[in-house]
Protein backbone atom coordinates (compact mmCIF):
# COMPACT_ATOMS: atom_id res chain seq x y z
CA UNK A 1 0.00 0.00 0.00
CA UNK A 2 1.35 3.36 -0.98
CA UNK A 3 -0.76 5.30 1.49
CA UNK A 4 0.82 8.52 2.71
CA UNK A 5 1.59 8.37 6.41
CA UNK A 6 -1.20 9.78 8.52
CA UNK A 7 -0.36 12.38 11.15
CA UNK A 8 0.03 10.55 14.44
CA UNK A 9 -3.24 9.42 15.90
CA UNK A 10 -5.27 11.05 13.13
CA UNK A 11 -8.04 8.65 12.16
CA UNK A 12 -8.56 7.66 8.51
CA UNK A 13 -12.28 7.76 9.00
CA UNK A 14 -14.36 9.35 11.72
CA UNK A 15 -18.12 9.43 12.26
CA UNK A 16 -19.56 12.18 14.40
CA UNK A 17 -23.11 12.12 15.75
CA UNK A 18 -24.62 10.20 12.83
CA UNK A 19 -28.41 10.04 12.74
CA UNK A 20 -30.53 8.49 10.00
CA UNK A 21 -34.25 8.57 9.56
CA UNK A 22 -36.17 6.59 6.94
CA UNK A 23 -39.46 8.46 7.12
CA UNK A 24 -40.55 8.06 10.75
CA UNK A 25 -38.11 5.23 11.33
CA UNK A 26 -35.17 6.47 13.38
CA UNK A 27 -32.55 3.89 12.32
CA UNK A 28 -29.33 5.47 13.58
CA UNK A 29 -29.51 7.47 16.80
CA UNK A 30 -26.17 9.18 17.19
CA UNK A 31 -23.13 7.13 16.19
CA UNK A 32 -19.57 8.26 17.01
CA UNK A 33 -16.72 6.17 15.70
CA UNK A 34 -13.12 6.60 14.57
CA UNK A 35 -10.70 4.23 12.85
CA UNK A 36 -6.97 4.61 12.35
CA UNK A 37 -5.13 3.37 9.27
CA UNK A 38 -4.45 -0.37 9.30
CA UNK A 39 -7.18 -1.16 11.80
CA UNK A 40 -10.06 -3.55 11.25
CA UNK A 41 -13.38 -2.43 12.73
CA UNK A 42 -15.93 -5.22 13.01
CA UNK A 43 -19.57 -4.30 13.46
CA UNK A 44 -21.94 -6.87 14.93
CA UNK A 45 -25.50 -6.76 16.14
CA UNK A 46 -29.01 -8.05 15.60
CA UNK A 47 -30.61 -7.58 12.16
CA UNK A 48 -32.55 -4.36 11.85
CA UNK A 49 -30.19 -2.72 14.31
CA UNK A 50 -28.71 -0.33 11.75
CA UNK A 51 -25.35 -1.99 10.99
CA UNK A 52 -25.69 -1.89 7.20
CA UNK A 53 -27.12 1.63 7.24
CA UNK A 54 -24.16 2.72 9.34
CA UNK A 55 -21.72 1.22 6.84
CA UNK A 56 -23.56 2.76 3.89
CA UNK A 57 -23.35 6.16 5.58
CA UNK A 58 -19.55 5.91 5.53
CA UNK A 59 -19.40 6.02 1.72
CA UNK A 60 -22.52 8.17 1.54
CA UNK A 61 -24.66 5.64 -0.33
CA UNK A 62 -27.05 6.72 2.41
CA UNK A 63 -26.83 10.36 3.31
CA UNK A 64 -26.83 10.81 7.08
CA UNK A 65 -29.83 12.85 8.24
CA UNK A 66 -27.55 14.53 10.79
CA UNK A 67 -23.89 14.34 11.74
CA UNK A 68 -20.62 14.37 9.89
CA UNK A 69 -18.37 11.80 8.21
CA UNK A 70 -14.67 12.62 8.06
CA UNK A 71 -12.44 10.75 5.62
CA UNK A 72 -8.73 11.51 5.20
CA UNK A 73 -9.27 14.60 7.31
CA UNK A 74 -12.07 16.02 5.14
CA UNK A 75 -15.74 16.36 6.00
CA UNK A 76 -17.32 14.41 3.14
CA UNK A 77 -20.86 15.31 4.24
CA UNK A 78 -20.05 18.82 2.98
CA UNK A 79 -22.18 19.32 -0.13
CA UNK A 80 -19.22 20.78 -2.02
CA UNK A 81 -17.15 17.58 -1.75
CA UNK A 82 -16.92 15.49 -4.94
CA UNK A 83 -18.19 12.13 -3.71
CA UNK A 84 -17.25 10.33 -6.93
CA UNK A 85 -13.66 11.20 -6.19
CA UNK A 86 -13.92 10.18 -2.52
CA UNK A 87 -15.47 6.83 -3.44
CA UNK A 88 -12.51 5.86 -5.63
CA UNK A 89 -10.51 5.61 -2.39
CA UNK A 90 -13.19 3.81 -0.42
CA UNK A 91 -14.23 0.36 -1.70
CA UNK A 92 -17.38 -1.49 -0.70
CA UNK A 93 -18.42 -5.12 -1.11
CA UNK A 94 -22.11 -5.97 -0.85
CA UNK A 95 -24.03 -8.91 0.52
CA UNK A 96 -25.54 -9.62 -2.92
CA UNK A 97 -22.21 -9.19 -4.82
CA UNK A 98 -23.80 -6.72 -7.28
CA UNK A 99 -21.48 -7.65 -10.12
CA UNK A 100 -22.55 -6.31 -13.52
CA UNK A 101 -24.11 -9.40 -15.12
CA UNK A 102 -23.54 -8.26 -18.70
CA UNK A 103 -19.77 -7.95 -18.26
CA UNK A 104 -17.10 -10.62 -17.86
CA UNK A 105 -15.23 -10.82 -14.56
CA UNK A 106 -12.26 -8.88 -15.89
CA UNK A 107 -14.49 -6.28 -17.52
CA UNK A 108 -16.30 -5.82 -14.19
CA UNK A 109 -12.95 -4.86 -12.71
CA UNK A 110 -11.52 -2.76 -15.52
CA UNK A 111 -14.60 -0.67 -16.31
CA UNK A 112 -14.14 1.72 -13.39
CA UNK A 113 -10.35 1.77 -13.81
CA UNK A 114 -10.78 2.93 -17.38
CA UNK A 115 -13.79 5.20 -17.07
CA UNK A 116 -13.21 6.69 -13.61
CA UNK A 117 -9.46 6.58 -13.01
CA UNK A 118 -8.80 7.07 -16.75
CA UNK A 119 -6.16 4.35 -16.79
CA UNK A 120 -5.32 3.06 -20.27
CA UNK A 121 -6.67 -0.33 -21.31
CA UNK A 122 -3.41 -2.26 -21.08
CA UNK A 123 -2.52 -1.11 -17.60
CA UNK A 124 -6.10 -1.57 -16.42
CA UNK A 125 -5.97 -5.15 -17.66
CA UNK A 126 -2.72 -5.78 -15.80
CA UNK A 127 -4.08 -4.30 -12.59
CA UNK A 128 -7.22 -6.39 -12.90
CA UNK A 129 -5.27 -9.60 -13.50
CA UNK A 130 -3.13 -8.79 -10.48
CA UNK A 131 -6.25 -8.52 -8.32
CA UNK A 132 -7.75 -11.68 -9.81
CA UNK A 133 -4.58 -13.53 -8.83
CA UNK A 134 -4.86 -11.99 -5.38
CA UNK A 135 -8.27 -13.64 -4.93
CA UNK A 136 -7.17 -16.78 -6.81
CA UNK A 137 -9.46 -16.44 -9.82
CA UNK A 138 -7.19 -15.44 -12.70
CA UNK A 139 -8.46 -18.42 -14.72
CA UNK A 140 -12.04 -17.03 -14.49
CA UNK A 141 -11.21 -13.68 -16.06
CA UNK A 142 -13.44 -14.20 -19.07
CA UNK A 143 -16.36 -15.83 -17.25
CA UNK A 144 -19.65 -14.00 -16.82
CA UNK A 145 -20.94 -13.65 -13.24
CA UNK A 146 -23.78 -16.05 -14.03
CA UNK A 147 -21.25 -18.79 -14.75
CA UNK A 148 -19.56 -18.46 -11.36
CA UNK A 149 -20.44 -19.77 -7.91
CA UNK A 150 -21.51 -17.34 -5.22
CA UNK A 151 -18.14 -17.53 -3.52
CA UNK A 152 -16.31 -16.85 -6.78
CA UNK A 153 -18.63 -13.93 -7.58
CA UNK A 154 -17.98 -12.43 -4.18
CA UNK A 155 -14.21 -12.77 -4.61
CA UNK A 156 -14.53 -11.03 -8.00
CA UNK A 157 -16.46 -8.27 -6.22
CA UNK A 158 -13.62 -7.94 -3.69
CA UNK A 159 -11.09 -7.81 -6.55
CA UNK A 160 -13.19 -5.16 -8.29
CA UNK A 161 -13.09 -2.95 -5.20
CA UNK A 162 -9.39 -3.58 -4.52
CA UNK A 163 -8.32 -2.78 -8.07
CA UNK A 164 -9.16 0.86 -7.37
CA UNK A 165 -6.43 0.72 -4.69
CA UNK A 166 -8.68 2.12 -1.98
CA UNK A 167 -7.47 3.23 1.44
CA UNK A 168 -10.55 1.92 3.19
CA UNK A 169 -12.61 -1.19 2.49
CA UNK A 170 -16.21 -1.63 3.62
CA UNK A 171 -17.71 -5.13 3.82
CA UNK A 172 -21.49 -5.38 4.19
CA UNK A 173 -22.36 -8.92 5.38
CA UNK A 174 -20.42 -10.30 2.44
CA UNK A 175 -20.83 -13.96 3.39
CA UNK A 176 -24.52 -13.91 4.36
CA UNK A 177 -25.77 -14.86 0.90
CA UNK A 178 -23.29 -17.71 0.44
CA UNK A 179 -23.73 -21.44 0.90
CA UNK A 180 -21.89 -22.52 4.07
CA UNK A 181 -19.10 -24.32 2.19
CA UNK A 182 -18.31 -21.16 0.18
CA UNK A 183 -17.98 -18.83 3.19
CA UNK A 184 -14.43 -19.91 3.97
CA UNK A 185 -12.88 -18.86 0.66
CA UNK A 186 -14.25 -15.32 0.99
CA UNK A 187 -13.20 -14.99 4.64
CA UNK A 188 -9.70 -16.19 3.69
CA UNK A 189 -9.39 -13.36 1.19
CA UNK A 190 -10.52 -10.82 3.80
CA UNK A 191 -8.15 -12.23 6.40
CA UNK A 192 -5.25 -11.93 3.99
CA UNK A 193 -6.27 -8.36 3.23
CA UNK A 194 -6.26 -7.48 6.93
CA UNK A 195 -2.81 -9.01 7.33
CA UNK A 196 -1.56 -6.81 4.49
CA UNK A 197 -2.58 -3.80 6.54
CA UNK A 198 -5.78 -2.73 4.79
CA UNK A 199 -8.07 -0.49 6.85
CA UNK A 200 -11.43 -2.25 6.96
CA UNK A 201 -14.94 -1.85 8.34
CA UNK A 202 -16.70 -5.18 8.40
CA UNK A 203 -20.35 -5.85 9.15
CA UNK A 204 -20.51 -9.56 9.80
CA UNK A 205 -22.26 -12.47 11.47
CA UNK A 206 -19.07 -14.55 11.41
CA UNK A 207 -18.11 -14.34 15.08
CA UNK A 208 -14.90 -16.36 14.67
CA UNK A 209 -13.71 -13.91 12.03
CA UNK A 210 -14.72 -10.96 14.20
CA UNK A 211 -12.74 -12.27 17.16
CA UNK A 212 -9.58 -13.14 15.27
CA UNK A 213 -9.29 -10.39 12.70
CA UNK A 214 -10.97 -7.39 14.35
CA UNK A 215 -8.85 -4.66 15.97
CA UNK A 216 -11.99 -3.16 17.41
CA UNK A 217 -15.55 -4.32 17.68
CA UNK A 218 -18.80 -2.42 18.14
CA UNK A 219 -22.15 -3.91 19.01
CA UNK A 220 -24.88 -1.92 17.27
CA UNK A 221 -28.39 -2.35 18.59
CA UNK A 222 -31.38 -0.04 18.34
CA UNK A 223 -29.41 2.47 16.28
CA UNK A 224 -26.72 3.13 18.88
CA UNK A 225 -23.34 1.63 19.75
CA UNK A 226 -24.45 -0.41 22.74
CA UNK A 227 -20.96 -1.67 23.54
CA UNK A 228 -17.46 -1.30 22.11
CA UNK A 229 -13.96 -2.54 22.77
CA UNK A 230 -11.39 -5.15 21.78
CA UNK A 231 -13.15 -8.20 20.29
CA UNK A 232 -11.48 -10.76 22.57
CA UNK A 233 -12.42 -8.85 25.71
CA UNK A 234 -15.97 -8.34 24.53
CA UNK A 235 -16.37 -12.04 23.76
CA UNK A 236 -14.82 -12.97 27.10
CA UNK A 237 -16.68 -10.43 29.25
CA UNK A 238 -19.70 -8.85 27.60
CA UNK A 239 -20.63 -5.91 29.83
CA UNK A 240 -24.23 -5.35 28.84
CA UNK A 241 -27.13 -7.74 29.09
CA UNK A 242 -28.04 -7.09 25.45
CA UNK A 243 -24.66 -8.23 24.18
CA UNK A 244 -24.78 -11.31 26.41
CA UNK A 245 -28.16 -12.20 24.93
CA UNK A 246 -26.89 -11.57 21.40
CA UNK A 247 -23.87 -13.82 21.92
CA UNK A 248 -26.04 -16.56 23.40
CA UNK A 249 -28.07 -16.56 20.19
CA UNK A 250 -25.27 -16.48 17.64
CA UNK A 251 -22.49 -18.45 19.30
Amino acid at each position, binding site marked *: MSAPVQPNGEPLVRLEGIHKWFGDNHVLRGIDLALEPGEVQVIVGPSGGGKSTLLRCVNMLEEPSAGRVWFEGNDITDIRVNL*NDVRTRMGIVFQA*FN*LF*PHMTAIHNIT*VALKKVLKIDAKEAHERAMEQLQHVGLEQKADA*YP*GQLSGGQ*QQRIAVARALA*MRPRLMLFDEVTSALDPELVGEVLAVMRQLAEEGMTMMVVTHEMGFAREVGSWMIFVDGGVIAEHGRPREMFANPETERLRQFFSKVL
Partner: protein
Amino acid sequence: MSDQRGEGTGTLVLGEGRADPGYLSTRRARAAYWFREQAPISLVVAIIGAVSLFLELVGSSILLAIGGLTPYESIVETWQSGTQKSLLWIALVMGIAAVIAGVATYRRMPTKAAREGAIAGAVLGIQTVVLAGIYIWFLGGDVEIFARNFVKFDVLSGFTGQFVNGAKNTLILALSAQVLGIALGLMLSLLALSKRSVTRAPARVYINFIRGTPLLWQLQFGFYGIVLGLQFNVSPYQVAILILGLNAGGYTAEIFRAGIQSIERSQLEAARSLGMSYFQSMRYAVIPQAVRRVIPPLMNEFVILIKDTSLVALLGLTLNERELMTVGRDIYAETFNATPFLATAAGYLIVTLPMIRFVTWLETKLRSGLVGVGA
Protein backbone atom coordinates in the same frame (compact mmCIF):
# COMPACT_ATOMS: atom_id res chain seq x y z
CA MET B 1 -24.16 -31.45 -20.05
CA SER B 2 -24.18 -32.28 -23.74
CA ASP B 3 -21.61 -35.02 -23.33
CA GLN B 4 -24.14 -36.96 -21.30
CA ARG B 5 -26.55 -37.17 -24.20
CA GLY B 6 -26.73 -40.46 -26.09
CA GLU B 7 -27.10 -40.47 -29.83
CA GLY B 8 -30.55 -41.87 -29.68
CA THR B 9 -31.04 -45.59 -29.89
CA GLY B 10 -33.36 -45.36 -26.94
CA THR B 11 -31.46 -47.30 -24.34
CA LEU B 12 -32.34 -44.95 -21.51
CA VAL B 13 -35.77 -45.52 -20.02
CA LEU B 14 -36.89 -43.46 -17.04
CA GLY B 15 -39.57 -45.72 -15.64
CA GLU B 16 -42.36 -47.62 -17.36
CA GLY B 17 -44.47 -45.43 -19.62
CA ARG B 18 -42.80 -42.19 -18.56
CA ALA B 19 -39.59 -42.23 -20.57
CA ASP B 20 -38.44 -38.74 -21.43
CA PRO B 21 -36.85 -38.43 -24.88
CA GLY B 22 -35.04 -35.24 -23.85
CA TYR B 23 -31.71 -37.03 -24.02
CA LEU B 24 -32.08 -37.56 -27.77
CA SER B 25 -30.09 -34.92 -29.58
CA THR B 26 -31.14 -35.24 -33.21
CA ARG B 27 -34.53 -34.56 -34.71
CA ARG B 28 -34.41 -37.88 -36.50
CA ALA B 29 -33.69 -39.83 -33.33
CA ARG B 30 -36.60 -38.09 -31.61
CA ALA B 31 -38.94 -38.95 -34.49
CA ALA B 32 -37.85 -42.61 -34.41
CA TYR B 33 -38.36 -42.66 -30.66
CA TRP B 34 -41.80 -41.11 -31.02
CA PHE B 35 -42.92 -43.77 -33.51
CA ARG B 36 -41.59 -46.62 -31.41
CA GLU B 37 -43.44 -45.42 -28.37
CA GLN B 38 -46.86 -45.05 -30.03
CA ALA B 39 -49.76 -47.35 -29.24
CA PRO B 40 -51.82 -48.50 -32.29
CA ILE B 41 -54.78 -46.30 -31.37
CA SER B 42 -52.69 -43.19 -30.70
CA LEU B 43 -50.87 -43.62 -34.00
CA VAL B 44 -54.20 -43.90 -35.83
CA VAL B 45 -55.62 -40.81 -34.09
CA ALA B 46 -52.50 -38.79 -34.81
CA ILE B 47 -52.48 -39.81 -38.46
CA ILE B 48 -56.21 -39.14 -38.98
CA GLY B 49 -55.87 -35.72 -37.37
CA ALA B 50 -52.83 -34.81 -39.44
CA VAL B 51 -54.33 -36.10 -42.68
CA SER B 52 -57.60 -34.22 -42.12
CA LEU B 53 -55.80 -30.91 -41.74
CA PHE B 54 -53.46 -31.72 -44.61
CA LEU B 55 -56.37 -32.59 -46.92
CA GLU B 56 -58.13 -29.40 -46.04
CA LEU B 57 -55.23 -26.97 -46.38
CA VAL B 58 -52.93 -28.54 -48.93
CA GLY B 59 -55.69 -30.33 -50.84
CA SER B 60 -57.70 -27.14 -51.30
CA SER B 61 -54.57 -25.25 -52.33
CA ILE B 62 -53.72 -27.92 -54.89
CA LEU B 63 -57.25 -27.76 -56.29
CA LEU B 64 -56.90 -23.98 -56.66
CA ALA B 65 -53.52 -24.41 -58.31
CA ILE B 66 -54.81 -27.01 -60.77
CA GLY B 67 -57.85 -24.87 -61.64
CA GLY B 68 -55.66 -21.79 -62.03
CA LEU B 69 -55.74 -18.44 -60.17
CA THR B 70 -56.44 -16.34 -63.25
CA PRO B 71 -58.85 -15.51 -64.65
CA TYR B 72 -60.91 -15.18 -61.49
CA GLU B 73 -63.66 -17.28 -63.01
CA SER B 74 -61.49 -20.37 -62.65
CA ILE B 75 -61.18 -19.73 -58.90
CA VAL B 76 -64.95 -19.49 -58.67
CA GLU B 77 -65.23 -22.71 -60.63
CA THR B 78 -62.89 -24.51 -58.23
CA TRP B 79 -64.71 -23.18 -55.19
CA GLN B 80 -68.07 -24.27 -56.55
CA SER B 81 -66.85 -27.67 -57.77
CA GLY B 82 -68.07 -30.89 -56.23
CA THR B 83 -64.47 -32.02 -55.61
CA GLN B 84 -63.80 -29.06 -53.32
CA LYS B 85 -67.02 -29.62 -51.40
CA SER B 86 -66.50 -33.35 -50.93
CA LEU B 87 -62.87 -32.73 -49.93
CA LEU B 88 -64.05 -30.34 -47.23
CA TRP B 89 -66.70 -32.69 -45.90
CA ILE B 90 -64.29 -35.64 -45.84
CA ALA B 91 -61.76 -33.54 -43.94
CA LEU B 92 -64.48 -32.38 -41.55
CA VAL B 93 -65.63 -35.94 -40.79
CA MET B 94 -62.04 -37.12 -40.30
CA GLY B 95 -61.37 -34.17 -38.04
CA ILE B 96 -64.39 -34.94 -35.88
CA ALA B 97 -63.37 -38.59 -35.74
CA ALA B 98 -59.86 -37.63 -34.60
CA VAL B 99 -61.23 -35.34 -31.90
CA ILE B 100 -63.63 -37.96 -30.53
CA ALA B 101 -61.13 -40.81 -30.65
CA GLY B 102 -58.34 -38.72 -29.20
CA VAL B 103 -60.36 -37.30 -26.32
CA ALA B 104 -61.81 -40.74 -25.54
CA THR B 105 -58.51 -42.58 -25.39
CA TYR B 106 -55.61 -40.28 -24.45
CA ARG B 107 -55.88 -40.98 -20.72
CA ARG B 108 -55.46 -44.73 -21.27
CA MET B 109 -52.36 -44.55 -23.47
CA PRO B 110 -49.47 -46.68 -22.11
CA THR B 111 -46.61 -44.25 -22.75
CA LYS B 112 -46.12 -40.53 -22.56
CA ALA B 113 -45.35 -40.27 -26.28
CA ALA B 114 -48.53 -42.23 -27.07
CA ARG B 115 -50.59 -39.90 -24.93
CA GLU B 116 -49.03 -36.90 -26.64
CA GLY B 117 -49.76 -38.55 -30.01
CA ALA B 118 -53.45 -38.95 -29.20
CA ILE B 119 -53.69 -35.39 -27.91
CA ALA B 120 -51.90 -34.03 -30.99
CA GLY B 121 -54.35 -35.91 -33.25
CA ALA B 122 -57.32 -34.45 -31.39
CA VAL B 123 -55.90 -30.90 -31.51
CA LEU B 124 -55.21 -31.16 -35.24
CA GLY B 125 -58.78 -32.44 -35.61
CA ILE B 126 -60.13 -29.38 -33.80
CA GLN B 127 -58.18 -27.11 -36.14
CA THR B 128 -59.62 -28.95 -39.16
CA VAL B 129 -63.15 -28.61 -37.82
CA VAL B 130 -62.80 -24.88 -37.14
CA LEU B 131 -61.22 -24.14 -40.53
CA ALA B 132 -63.65 -26.36 -42.42
CA GLY B 133 -66.52 -24.61 -40.67
CA ILE B 134 -65.22 -21.22 -41.77
CA TYR B 135 -64.60 -22.45 -45.31
CA ILE B 136 -68.09 -23.97 -45.65
CA TRP B 137 -69.61 -20.73 -44.30
CA PHE B 138 -67.54 -18.76 -46.83
CA LEU B 139 -68.62 -20.95 -49.75
CA GLY B 140 -72.25 -20.34 -48.76
CA GLY B 141 -71.88 -16.69 -49.83
CA ASP B 142 -71.78 -15.27 -53.35
CA VAL B 143 -68.23 -16.34 -54.20
CA GLU B 144 -68.62 -15.07 -57.75
CA ILE B 145 -68.95 -11.41 -56.71
CA PHE B 146 -66.32 -11.88 -54.03
CA ALA B 147 -63.79 -13.35 -56.46
CA ARG B 148 -64.42 -10.68 -59.10
CA ASN B 149 -63.65 -7.90 -56.59
CA PHE B 150 -61.08 -9.34 -54.23
CA VAL B 151 -59.01 -12.04 -55.94
CA LYS B 152 -58.83 -10.85 -59.53
CA PHE B 153 -55.08 -11.28 -59.66
CA ASP B 154 -54.67 -10.23 -63.28
CA VAL B 155 -55.32 -6.61 -62.30
CA LEU B 156 -52.01 -6.69 -60.44
CA SER B 157 -49.94 -7.36 -63.53
CA GLY B 158 -47.65 -4.45 -64.32
CA PHE B 159 -47.79 -3.05 -60.80
CA THR B 160 -45.03 -5.17 -59.22
CA GLY B 161 -42.50 -2.35 -59.41
CA GLN B 162 -44.84 -0.02 -57.58
CA PHE B 163 -45.36 -2.49 -54.75
CA VAL B 164 -41.62 -3.10 -54.38
CA ASN B 165 -41.07 0.65 -54.28
CA GLY B 166 -43.91 0.95 -51.78
CA ALA B 167 -42.34 -1.67 -49.52
CA LYS B 168 -39.02 0.16 -49.76
CA ASN B 169 -40.62 3.44 -48.74
CA THR B 170 -42.51 1.80 -45.90
CA LEU B 171 -39.21 0.45 -44.58
CA ILE B 172 -37.39 3.77 -44.98
CA LEU B 173 -40.16 5.63 -43.17
CA ALA B 174 -40.34 3.12 -40.33
CA LEU B 175 -36.59 2.74 -39.88
CA SER B 176 -35.80 6.46 -39.93
CA ALA B 177 -38.65 7.17 -37.55
CA GLN B 178 -37.54 4.38 -35.23
CA VAL B 179 -33.94 5.60 -35.12
CA LEU B 180 -35.18 9.09 -34.30
CA GLY B 181 -37.63 7.61 -31.80
CA ILE B 182 -34.99 5.55 -29.97
CA ALA B 183 -32.63 8.50 -29.59
CA LEU B 184 -35.43 10.77 -28.42
CA GLY B 185 -37.01 8.08 -26.25
CA LEU B 186 -33.79 7.28 -24.40
CA MET B 187 -33.25 10.95 -23.62
CA LEU B 188 -36.85 11.44 -22.53
CA SER B 189 -36.77 8.34 -20.33
CA LEU B 190 -33.72 9.65 -18.46
CA LEU B 191 -35.44 13.00 -17.96
CA ALA B 192 -38.62 11.26 -16.82
CA LEU B 193 -36.63 9.25 -14.25
CA SER B 194 -34.99 12.32 -12.72
CA LYS B 195 -35.55 12.92 -9.04
CA ARG B 196 -36.06 16.62 -9.78
CA SER B 197 -39.60 17.57 -10.65
CA VAL B 198 -38.48 20.46 -12.85
CA THR B 199 -36.63 17.97 -15.05
CA ARG B 200 -39.39 15.37 -15.04
CA ALA B 201 -42.21 17.75 -15.87
CA PRO B 202 -41.34 18.63 -19.49
CA ALA B 203 -40.69 14.97 -20.34
CA ARG B 204 -44.01 13.93 -18.81
CA VAL B 205 -45.88 16.67 -20.67
CA TYR B 206 -44.35 15.60 -23.97
CA ILE B 207 -44.88 11.86 -23.43
CA ASN B 208 -48.46 12.28 -22.28
CA PHE B 209 -49.29 14.60 -25.16
CA ILE B 210 -47.89 12.15 -27.72
CA ARG B 211 -49.64 9.21 -26.13
CA GLY B 212 -52.85 11.12 -25.58
CA THR B 213 -53.48 12.34 -29.15
CA PRO B 214 -54.05 10.18 -32.25
CA LEU B 215 -51.11 9.74 -34.61
CA LEU B 216 -53.46 10.65 -37.44
CA TRP B 217 -54.06 14.04 -35.82
CA GLN B 218 -50.32 14.55 -35.22
CA LEU B 219 -49.51 13.79 -38.85
CA GLN B 220 -52.18 16.02 -40.29
CA PHE B 221 -51.75 18.91 -37.88
CA GLY B 222 -47.97 18.70 -38.18
CA PHE B 223 -48.08 18.55 -41.94
CA TYR B 224 -50.58 21.35 -42.51
CA GLY B 225 -49.07 23.44 -39.75
CA ILE B 226 -45.51 23.20 -41.04
CA VAL B 227 -46.02 23.15 -44.79
CA LEU B 228 -49.22 25.12 -45.35
CA GLY B 229 -49.13 27.24 -42.20
CA LEU B 230 -45.50 28.14 -41.71
CA GLN B 231 -44.77 27.80 -45.42
CA PHE B 232 -41.55 25.85 -44.75
CA ASN B 233 -40.24 24.19 -47.87
CA VAL B 234 -40.23 20.53 -46.80
CA SER B 235 -41.77 17.51 -48.47
CA PRO B 236 -44.60 15.50 -46.92
CA TYR B 237 -42.14 12.60 -46.84
CA GLN B 238 -39.77 14.51 -44.56
CA VAL B 239 -42.62 15.71 -42.38
CA ALA B 240 -43.86 12.13 -42.15
CA ILE B 241 -40.48 10.87 -40.90
CA LEU B 242 -40.25 13.72 -38.39
CA ILE B 243 -43.76 13.27 -36.97
CA LEU B 244 -43.54 9.45 -36.93
CA GLY B 245 -40.19 9.79 -35.13
CA LEU B 246 -41.55 12.27 -32.58
CA ASN B 247 -44.46 9.92 -32.00
CA ALA B 248 -42.24 6.84 -31.64
CA GLY B 249 -40.09 8.84 -29.19
CA GLY B 250 -43.00 9.20 -26.79
CA TYR B 251 -43.79 5.50 -26.76
CA THR B 252 -40.13 4.43 -26.76
CA ALA B 253 -39.49 6.67 -23.75
CA GLU B 254 -42.03 4.73 -21.72
CA ILE B 255 -40.49 1.43 -22.82
CA PHE B 256 -37.02 2.57 -21.77
CA ARG B 257 -38.30 4.01 -18.50
CA ALA B 258 -39.87 0.67 -17.56
CA GLY B 259 -36.71 -1.14 -18.65
CA ILE B 260 -34.41 1.06 -16.60
CA GLN B 261 -36.67 0.84 -13.56
CA SER B 262 -36.63 -2.96 -13.83
CA ILE B 263 -32.85 -3.03 -13.19
CA GLU B 264 -32.19 -3.52 -9.49
CA ARG B 265 -31.19 -0.39 -7.61
CA SER B 266 -28.15 -2.28 -6.31
CA GLN B 267 -26.60 -2.14 -9.79
CA LEU B 268 -26.63 1.64 -9.70
CA GLU B 269 -25.23 1.59 -6.16
CA ALA B 270 -22.42 -0.76 -7.16
CA ALA B 271 -21.44 1.55 -10.00
CA ARG B 272 -21.69 4.70 -7.87
CA SER B 273 -19.58 3.13 -5.14
CA LEU B 274 -16.81 2.57 -7.70
CA GLY B 275 -16.69 6.31 -8.17
CA MET B 276 -18.77 6.50 -11.35
CA SER B 277 -20.98 9.54 -11.82
CA TYR B 278 -24.73 9.07 -12.22
CA PHE B 279 -24.45 9.25 -15.99
CA GLN B 280 -21.46 6.91 -16.15
CA SER B 281 -23.37 4.43 -13.99
CA MET B 282 -26.33 4.64 -16.33
CA ARG B 283 -24.17 4.45 -19.43
CA TYR B 284 -22.04 1.44 -18.44
CA ALA B 285 -24.03 -0.49 -15.83
CA VAL B 286 -27.77 0.15 -16.08
CA ILE B 287 -28.71 1.04 -19.65
CA PRO B 288 -26.91 -1.92 -21.33
CA GLN B 289 -28.92 -4.27 -19.14
CA ALA B 290 -32.13 -2.31 -19.65
CA VAL B 291 -31.73 -2.35 -23.43
CA ARG B 292 -31.48 -6.16 -23.43
CA ARG B 293 -34.66 -6.38 -21.41
CA VAL B 294 -36.69 -4.00 -23.57
CA ILE B 295 -35.88 -5.58 -26.94
CA PRO B 296 -39.19 -7.48 -27.11
CA PRO B 297 -41.43 -4.45 -26.35
CA LEU B 298 -39.22 -2.26 -28.55
CA MET B 299 -39.69 -4.74 -31.38
CA ASN B 300 -43.42 -4.74 -30.81
CA GLU B 301 -43.34 -0.96 -31.05
CA PHE B 302 -41.42 -1.13 -34.31
CA VAL B 303 -43.88 -3.54 -35.90
CA ILE B 304 -46.69 -1.17 -34.88
CA LEU B 305 -44.69 1.69 -36.39
CA ILE B 306 -44.31 -0.18 -39.70
CA LYS B 307 -48.07 -0.48 -39.88
CA ASP B 308 -48.61 3.10 -38.72
CA THR B 309 -46.69 4.35 -41.73
CA SER B 310 -49.90 3.56 -43.64
CA LEU B 311 -51.37 6.75 -42.17
CA VAL B 312 -48.94 8.73 -44.29
CA ALA B 313 -51.27 7.92 -47.19
CA LEU B 314 -53.28 10.99 -46.12
CA LEU B 315 -50.49 13.49 -46.71
CA GLY B 316 -50.40 13.37 -50.50
CA LEU B 317 -47.06 11.84 -51.45
CA THR B 318 -45.46 12.02 -54.88
CA LEU B 319 -45.42 8.87 -57.01
CA ASN B 320 -41.96 7.78 -55.91
CA GLU B 321 -42.57 8.49 -52.23
CA ARG B 322 -45.63 6.29 -51.86
CA GLU B 323 -45.56 3.55 -49.23
CA LEU B 324 -47.43 0.22 -49.41
CA MET B 325 -50.84 1.44 -48.31
CA THR B 326 -50.86 4.39 -50.72
CA VAL B 327 -49.75 2.16 -53.57
CA GLY B 328 -52.55 -0.29 -52.84
CA ARG B 329 -55.10 2.50 -52.56
CA ASP B 330 -53.97 4.19 -55.78
CA ILE B 331 -54.08 0.98 -57.78
CA TYR B 332 -57.51 0.30 -56.31
CA ALA B 333 -58.63 3.72 -57.54
CA GLU B 334 -57.15 3.00 -60.93
CA THR B 335 -58.55 -0.51 -61.45
CA PHE B 336 -61.62 -0.23 -59.29
CA ASN B 337 -60.78 -3.63 -57.89
CA ALA B 338 -59.87 -4.48 -54.27
CA THR B 339 -57.29 -7.16 -55.05
CA PRO B 340 -54.35 -4.71 -54.64
CA PHE B 341 -55.13 -4.59 -50.92
CA LEU B 342 -54.25 -8.30 -50.71
CA ALA B 343 -50.90 -7.46 -52.28
CA THR B 344 -50.50 -4.66 -49.73
CA ALA B 345 -51.07 -7.09 -46.85
CA ALA B 346 -48.58 -9.50 -48.38
CA GLY B 347 -46.12 -6.62 -48.68
CA TYR B 348 -46.46 -5.75 -44.98
CA LEU B 349 -45.93 -9.39 -44.01
CA ILE B 350 -42.85 -9.66 -46.20
CA VAL B 351 -41.44 -6.66 -44.35
CA THR B 352 -42.49 -7.59 -40.80
CA LEU B 353 -41.94 -11.35 -40.64
CA PRO B 354 -38.16 -11.31 -41.28
CA MET B 355 -37.95 -8.44 -38.79
CA ILE B 356 -39.61 -10.56 -36.12
CA ARG B 357 -37.28 -13.48 -36.89
CA PHE B 358 -34.23 -11.22 -36.76
CA VAL B 359 -35.10 -9.76 -33.39
CA THR B 360 -35.83 -13.18 -31.90
CA TRP B 361 -32.34 -14.19 -32.99
CA LEU B 362 -30.83 -10.99 -31.61
CA GLU B 363 -32.63 -11.48 -28.33
CA THR B 364 -31.20 -14.96 -27.72
CA LYS B 365 -27.76 -13.66 -28.63
CA LEU B 366 -27.93 -10.77 -26.18
CA ARG B 367 -29.50 -12.91 -23.48
CA SER B 368 -26.55 -15.28 -23.50
CA GLY B 369 -24.52 -12.82 -21.44
CA LEU B 370 -27.27 -12.53 -18.86
CA VAL B 371 -27.53 -15.88 -17.13
CA GLY B 372 -28.47 -15.65 -13.44
CA VAL B 373 -27.11 -12.81 -11.34
CA GLY B 374 -26.30 -14.80 -8.20
CA ALA B 375 -27.74 -14.12 -4.75
